[in-house]
């Protein structure tokens, strides 16, 4: 049988055997022949083209291998360039079956330029082996986006806009970077919004935050710098914004009253400045009268912080009368600026009572009186101070009880305490110094008295018995007896003799025991 010239298909034939002499001639034999096709490699597309910026790898592409013949196609794929690869590299396909093969290009390390490679699909049993796919690669120069910084942080007080900030866009690649900037928040703006940069060139982009309409809180937005032709597009700048409450001025007290005697300055007073809002209160103080001054004249307070401001009145050169002034605390950034402390000053020519000290403290043993103490009365004002001193307790006595002093003059009162009739305990009294004409009448001085229980001295018999026998004295009595005797730390016959002397018994006759 000769089938090599036959196309694929099914063939039938008959073999006839005959002999005319035979009784059953002719006889026939049927012959069936099937001619099958060889496997054949089908591959598409025949050409692949890759293009990628310098320093990058392009996305992979695919080719499809099909057994366009018969039988089984056992294909193998080979590449002829190191930057070219396929996956899988081999396979088997029945007649009519197909398989996708990924084609990858590793061009990141290739210099700019054009490259060509070939993928060869082969099967020795295929009728058309090998088949090839041409791979063209273009590595081209591209711009790249450089942005610095990548994050911007804004802080603003409610109702205000923070200062603008900038980012720098740089073309860190090759060719021209045609960048554009977009923002994702209505309160965010970047200007300019686009530009072109040659390789290595930079451009400043101003980022503006409009927070005046925003409530207190934290916000985040982005500025996106992009160029489709850039190798690293897009690049994103994160913008963080914190909107805080405005500072507010708190003052306490809201007014001050000074009372001065003519020719003298009154004591200073203080006002407390507090930031009762948010943010930072940068306050400044101003006065509207030459006789008025403050210290310090300004400061910075974070939310909740306070600071004392000393208010001083220089009234020494002022005539008698009433004066008014103001201390103004302001901060243009505060929600309630300015705030005012009213200062009232009364300069008087009347006398004023000064008492020193304001408290006298006495201590005495039971049955005894403490030493006298002085109390000084001074006319702190003008004119004549006609003072009178009284006490509310009979155990306090004053000498003198009245007096007259000119401006700046002083007088001493001797304050005596008679505690001999008082039992142990604490006592209090008040000395009142008054002059109806004085501007500050009355003034008082407190008197406190502590009376300690007296040591109970032993009888001479008790003292003797303690030395003679077991009748012990209390430790405080022993200490007392030793203290009046030889002070040797114990009670002995020398101490007893001293005690007898103290009692005045030494010269008299005392019957024994």
């Amino acid at each position, binding site marked *: 049988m000769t089938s090599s010239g036959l196309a694929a298909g099914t063939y039938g034939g008959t073999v006839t055997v005959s002999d005319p002499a035979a009784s059953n001639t002719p006889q026939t034999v049927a012959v069936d022949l099937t001619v099958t096709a060889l496997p054949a490699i089908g591959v598409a597309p025949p050409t692949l083209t890759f293009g990628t910026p310098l320093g990058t790898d392009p996305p992979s592409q695919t080719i499809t291998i099909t057994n366009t013949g018969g039988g089984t196609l056992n294909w193998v794929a080979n590449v002829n360039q190191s930057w070219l690869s396929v996956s899988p590299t081999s396979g088997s396909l029945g007649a009519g079956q197909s398989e996708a093969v990924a084609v990858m290009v590793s061009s990141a390390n290739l210099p700019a330029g054009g490259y060509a490679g070939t993928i060869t699909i082969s099967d020795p049993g295929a009728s058309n082996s090998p088949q090839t796919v041409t791979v063209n690669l273009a590595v081209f120069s591209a711009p790249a986006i450089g942005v610095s910084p990548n994050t911007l942080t804004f802080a603003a007080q409610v109702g205000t806009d923070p200062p603008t900030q900038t980012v720098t866009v740089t073309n860190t690649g090759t060719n021209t970077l045609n960048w554009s900037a977009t923002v994702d928040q209505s309160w965010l703006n970047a200007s300019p919004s686009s530009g072109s940069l040659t390789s290595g060139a930079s451009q400043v982009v101003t980022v503006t935050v409009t927070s005046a309409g925003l409530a207190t809180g934290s916000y985040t937005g982005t500025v996106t710098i992009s160029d489709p032709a850039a190798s690293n597009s897009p690049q994103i700048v994160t913008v963080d914004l914190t909107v805080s409450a405005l500072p507010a001025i708190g003052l306490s007290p809201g007014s001050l009253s000074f009372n001065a005697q003519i020719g003298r300055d009154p004591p200073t007073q203080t006002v407390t400045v507090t930031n009762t809002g948010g943010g930072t209160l940068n306050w400044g103080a101003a006065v509207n009268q030459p006789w008025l001054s403050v210290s310090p004249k300004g400061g910075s307070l974070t939310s909740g912080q306070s600071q004392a401001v000393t208010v001083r009145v220089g009234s020494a050169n002022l005539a008698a009368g009433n004066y008014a002034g103001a201390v103004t605390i302001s901060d243009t950034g505060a929600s309630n600026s300015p705030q005012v402390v009213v200062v009232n000053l009364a300069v008087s020519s009347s006398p004023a009572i000064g008492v020193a000290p304001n408290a006298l403290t006495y201590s005495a043993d039971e049955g005894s009186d403490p030493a006298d103490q002085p109390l000084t009365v001074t006319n702190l004002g003008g004119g004549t101070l006609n003072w009178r001193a009284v006490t509310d307790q009979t155990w306090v006595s004053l000498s003198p009880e009245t007096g007259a002093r000119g401006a700046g003059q002083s007088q001493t009162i001797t304050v005596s305490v008679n505690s001999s009739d008082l039992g142990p305990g604490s006592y209090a009294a008040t000395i009142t110094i008054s002059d109806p004409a004085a501007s500050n009448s009355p003034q008082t001085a407190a008197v406190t008295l502590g009376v300690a229980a007296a040591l109970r001295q032993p009888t001479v018999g008790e003292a003797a018995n303690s030395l003679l026998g077991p009748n012990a004295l209390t430790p405080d009595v022993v200490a007392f007896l030793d203290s009046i005797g030889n002070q040797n730390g114990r009670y*002995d016959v020398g101490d007893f003799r001293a005690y007898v002397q103290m009692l005045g018994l030494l*010269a008299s006759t005392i019957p*024994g025991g």
Partner: protein
Amino acid sequence: MSIRSVCLGLGRPAALGLVILLAGCKPTAIVEPDTPQPGTLTLSIQASGGQGHAFLIEIVGQASSPTAVNDSHLLFHIATGPGLRLILIGAVASGPVARIQVPDVRQASTYTAQVVEVADDMNRLLSASSFTAQIGS
């Protein structure tokens, strides 16, 4: 019948009572030699140095009712189990300082006395060993 024989016939308690009843008449003539002779003994102090001005003295022996020899001296005492403790306040160099009542003066030699503490005129303690105390008739 002599008192002595009465005492013997009455036994010791009765005889002692009789002795007391008759003591004001002529005691030395009627007391038996072994009968206790209540009376007074004298406490004396001897100083090896200067004067003492206050003394704490311990007497061992049955005694009572001490009195100062010098009226200007002060004397305090308590009875103790074995005798007396005395405080004598007064300047003493040497000599008798007090008299004590004892139940039997013939037992004087059995009494002992010791200066426990002594102080000078500034009430400072002196060395007690510089002073000795004695009980005698």
